[in-house]
């Protein structure tokens, strides 16, 4: 039996639905403790010199928290910006380009941040 649902499935602006919603909430839940932890690290480094900052960021626990925060934050912001794009960019071509640019921006930020963190921890 074919129900009318199959005719409309995937026809929304995003061509997908609950998976996106779920990932947004999952990363939002993870972001709360991770961002608070990161904020504490940053506040504790206000006014400190280069050596002290390197020392703190090379602490294994701090480094792992920042890595986890980066993964969760970047995933959250990529799909969040995608929703904004889908809301305001109506031309299909421009929308595809904007969504691509969004993904590339997120990956670029992630690569630079992770590279810097690895260098601080292993490469100085």
């Amino acid at each position, binding site marked *: 039996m074919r129900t009318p649902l199959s005719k409309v499935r995937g026809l929304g602006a995003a061509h997908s639905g609950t998976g996106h919603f779920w990932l947004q909430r999952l990363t939002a839940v993870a972001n709360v403790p991770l961002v608070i932890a990161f904020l504490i690290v940053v506040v504790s480094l*206000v006014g400190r010199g280069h050596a002290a900052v390197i020392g703190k960021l090379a602490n294994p626990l701090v480094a792992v928290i920042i890595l986890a925060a980066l993964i969760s934050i970047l995933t959250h912001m990529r799909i969040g*910006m995608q929703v*904004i794009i889908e809301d305001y960019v109506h031309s299909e071509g421009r929308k595809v380009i904007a969504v691509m640019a969004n993904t590339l921006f997120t990956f670029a930020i992630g690569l*630079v*941040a992770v590279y*810097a963190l690895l260098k601080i921890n292993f490469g100085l």
Partner: protein
Amino acid sequence: MAETKIQRPLSPHLSIYRLTPTMVMSIVHRITGAALYFGTLLLAWWLLAVAGPAGQFELANAFFASWLGRLILFGYTWALLHHMLGGIRHFIWDTGAGYEAHERQFLAIATLVGSVTLTVAVWLFAYFLKG
């Protein structure tokens, strides 16, 4: 399948409604989200500066310590905390609670008051730590 342009009806947009706290907080949640998105550029720059030679670190530090840098970081802190509290408001709604008119109103005001209070507290604490 034939490519036909479907003329879907559009709902009335923002300009037609009277501003309410819930509506403003919804808009601000999206704006802070977008601002935080671009704020990650500063985060990546800072990490790169820490990983780089002393000169680069000093340059980044000098920028963040300047009045413009502090203003941006203060706004960054507020956007972060406001978006976080806005997210927690959404968690409450996800459980099916908080939909009554007075509850929505309370949550909207609490988000704003909470974010401003927490931002000031974080900065006072940072200045206290720095001495």
